[in-house]
């Protein structure tokens, strides 16, 4: 038997998020990273499972080209962290609306119906601030954009709201 259930506290990562390994310096390390990257790219090219993701990344590029509410472009660090977050999302998850919030951070919004949704903002350091509403319940919190996947707190909330 090979159980596949993840441990409760582990980050969630979709198939387009390669495993996060310590970057190496040897020729063998470069060989492995090149083979992994090529395998993922070929897989992405061979099946159209990432159409919604590419749409979200396009929207992210669009909003980052324009001046945000603070009169300056979005910090490249925010763009990079938001892109990593989107790439880590499992393909079964709904894609969010992408915009720039009042602090010039990247805002991702999911609307699952009347008084049910989640909003999060991603800043240049990869810090995530999120808030969600579900009926009369509301909560907010903070997390980080991790290299290995989406934090359990954010992933669990999103999964619960989208399945409710």
């Amino acid at each position, binding site marked *: 038997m090979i159980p596949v259930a993840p441990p409760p506290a582990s980050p969630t990562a979709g198939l387009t998020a390669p*495993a996060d390994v*310590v*970057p*190496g310096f040897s020729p063998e390390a470069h060989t492995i990273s090149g083979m992994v990257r090529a395998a993922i790219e070929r897989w992405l090219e061979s099946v159209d499972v990432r159409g919604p993701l590419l749409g979200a990344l396009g929207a992210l590029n669009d909003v980052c080209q324009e001046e945000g509410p603070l009169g300056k472009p979005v910090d*490249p660090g925010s763009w990079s962290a938001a892109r990593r977050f989107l790439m880590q999302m499992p393909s079964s998850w709904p894609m969010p609306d992408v915009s720039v919030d009042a602090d010039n951070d990247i805002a991702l919004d999911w609307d699952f119906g009347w008084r049910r949704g989640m909003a999060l903002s991603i800043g240049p350091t990869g810090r995530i601030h999120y808030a969600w509403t579900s009926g009369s319940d509301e909560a907010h919190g903070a997390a980080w954009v991790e290299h*290995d996947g989406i934090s359990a707190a954010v992933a669990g909330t999103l999964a619960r709201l989208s399945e409710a």
Partner: protein
Amino acid sequence: MATPRDHLNRAPIVEALLDLRVRPAEGGTTPRTKSAVEALRPDYPEVQEISKIEGQLLIDAKSVATTHASTPLGWQLKNAAAGRVVRLAQDGFTFSQLRPYPSWNVFLAEARRLWNPYASAFAPHEVSRLGLRYINRIALPANASLEDWLEAPPPIPPQVPRTVQRFLTQVVVYDEGSSASATITQAMEQAQGAGVTPAVLLDIDVFRHGTWDPTDQQIWETFGKFRGLKNRMFYASLKEAAIKEYE
């Protein structure tokens, strides 16, 4: 599974890496962070600044626009003669030992020695991830059969040609005992020419997320546990015939 040994005289390790990811302090690279470089420069004379370069390419019907920004991240220091590289950056610390690998005690002691000036100079808020990665190069003799060398070779259905030109497998597993995960990668490239020995790369990366104070001694005890897990996975991944080549 091969029988675990205490020591392999000719261990197939081509690179060992010890990595600590951190939540950075505010302020970016500063003269104070540079002091770590100066402290280590006598032993690591080749210094290279590393930056994070973010670029965007926007293509529409009328034009192509690009933007990019470069942010200093830290430094990479190298001692080529000793086969050692250390990365000191805002987001973390990495120590790499290339061939020849000395021993666990020597490797760990050097990593700890290098960590101290890094932690003092960069003053990270906390350590958020520990990682220990070993890349092994397992040479295959002529006409070798993968199943005689690997405990988990890539499965090939019957009646499919058996000659493997290249393969890549990767699994991420979780060990409840140590609360650590491990990414185990096996890769074989197509032979690059006559006379080149084919080899399988066995790459074991053990890691754990958490929150540690940068001065916490438990960090180094955890790396010791990671090493035990890594060794268990190494011997479990290879057949006895493979290990005998490295005794």
